[in-house]
């Protein structure tokens, strides 16, 4: 059995989409335009000497190149049929939900982590190990872990391992 066979019956690729290609090229064009505007407005401490390049030169050249390339891409997207996307896997149901939930959980985790420590009951309590445990528990729930064992044997030991390794061994102030 060859490897190709395994991959073939495994997943499907998303369909080519002209709309997506056009939107992507237009977005790229808008981005490069924005950058060009910002580049031209870079404030300089001092004028560059004769024959030298100042801080604006390089970003300006890049933004103009980017605008040219994006325009070309836009034309290609409009004129030519949309390219195959055989190197990508198709979206699956629940995919957006998983990523969305991950991002929300991560954002909340980062906020808790950023607070650092709280003082309660006369003790300075490190939030990181607690926040990391809850974060991991939420994530495995989102990704579909079943059974109480998963919730007992994964989040807490993993969070503490991370805390031990980084905060205690490497002395990184989490």
């Amino acid at each position: 059995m060859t490897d190709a066979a395994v991959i073939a019956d495994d997943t499907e690729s998303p369909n080519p989409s002209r709309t997506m290609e056009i939107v992507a090229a237009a977005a790229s064009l808008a981005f490069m335009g924005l950058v060009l505007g910002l580049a031209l407005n870079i404030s300089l401490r001092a004028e560059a000497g004769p024959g030298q390049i100042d801080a604006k030169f390089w970003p300006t050249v890049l933004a103009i190149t980017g605008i040219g390339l994006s325009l070309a891409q836009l034309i290609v997207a409009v004129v030519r049929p949309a390219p195959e996307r055989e190197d990508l896997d198709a979206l699956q149901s629940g995919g957006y939900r998983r990523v969305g939930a991950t991002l929300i959980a991560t954002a909340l985790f980062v906020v808790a982590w950023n607070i650092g420590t709280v003082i309660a009951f006369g003790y300075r309590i490190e939030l990181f190990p607690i926040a990391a445990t809850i974060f991991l528990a939420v994530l495995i729930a989102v990704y579909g872990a079943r059974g109480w064992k998963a919730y007992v044997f994964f989040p807490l030991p993993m969070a503490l391992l991370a805390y031990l390794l980084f905060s205690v061994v490497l002395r990184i102030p989490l």
Partner: protein
Amino acid sequence: MNQLIEGLSALASIEVVLCLLLGLGLGLLVGMFPGITATMAVALASGFTLTLDPVPGLCVLLTIYVAANFGDRVPSILINTPGTPASIATTLDGYPMAKQGKAGLALTMSAFVTAGGVLLSMVIFIAAAVPIATIARDYFRSPELFALVVFGLTVMIGIASNSVLKGLIAGVIGLLIGSVGLYSATGDQRFTFGISELSGSEGVSFLAVIIGLFGVTELFDQMLTHSKSQIKPISALGRWWPNKAEFRSSLKPFAVSSGVGLVAGLVPAAGGDIAGLIGWDRVRRMSKHPKSFGKGNLEGVVAADTASSATLGGSLTTTMALGIPGDSVMAVMIGSMLIWGLNPGPQLFTTRPDLVVTMAAIMIIAVVLSLIASIVRMKGMVKLLDTPNHYLWPTILLFCMLGTYATTNSIFTVVTMLVFGVVGVVLKRVGIPAGPVVLGLLLGPIAEENLARTLVLQQGRGFFEVWSPIALAFLALAAISLIVPMLRRRKGSTLEQKVADELAQAETSALDSYNEKQENTK
């Protein structure tokens, strides 16, 4: 001869053996954690090695340096996240191989060529460190560096496998990200929006970008496309010992890439990351089946890892022979050596030849130990990926975040990394590749700085006084690299190309399965 014996006998002690093993363990471990680089490990270890004598101290530091170069390939291949920047190019073919169930083969081959690359590069250090390093310094000045980097930028076309146009857009995005922060020639601020975290000379943290664009992007993409019925092919099949045909076909990429790595190692501005990408692209261009690169070609892994590891000897050479740090690990090494009262520079070779022998011996021993350790633990590493996704994903995400945090001790860097993770998924879904973004980010600042310097030096001098034949040759090579593929594309009809590629692919896979059968019957 005396110095040789003196240098080697300095290593014959229990303390040295313990230090070697300590460095080996640390190096392999930090290499595997994305974000924690060899530089960081060496820096942290240097706090401890200061209390040791120079020889055991050097053992720890140099062994970490070498072993991290083995360890960082593992996450590149298994989870598409470079363990350190030196293994960025490894992801290009290594991860597709893992997806096809050939992770074991990729890891084994990678370990072999990494060992080969480092050993080969040590020849420079042993044979003629001072003269070679002096030549490199005198002939690779700002104009030559600018030309070299422009040549490096043409690699973009190669990484963009599907659409050259999208690859170039990706490259421009990377170059623009590279221009954020302090412009080194005049000290002006660019695109910092008053955010102090962005206003240093690095601007956007490079490690945050690569971990975001490679690791977290892949994670999010898997979340989007994962379905329960899917079979995970990772460790399900695949032998891990390369067969004779694979060894033979690896010889040419090894030779080409080690050349690239040796030169890049001697150039202070270029390290293993840049060398890996250039080596990969050179081999791809010389191959009969360039289209199979980036889709899980073993030769691609060989090319990337040989080139990036062959920079080690060169970096060590420039560092010890000139006192100019060959890469960021070596910059930390210089700090430690100064404390021991050892001044890296030309006089080190005349006053302490025994120490030079000792260092070379440590490097070689470290390579052998790392190779053995890598091969032994290979199977266990691959098995890790059998962990169900609901455990694997949170673990990868948490450690990517911690690793990024550790680079600056600032949450801002973690947020940057996550933003690039999201941006990366969007880019990936619309077919814009991440490779050129990273290449642009890596090379852009070097290109601009050297161009700015060259133009300052140009004042009042003739054109050819500044732009040497070497610089012009590199610029010409860059132009050729840009033009030739375009001409070739126009000539060969796409249908013809497709059939040829298909045939080539069928041929290799047939050969593969044949060899596999042979192996099994043995």
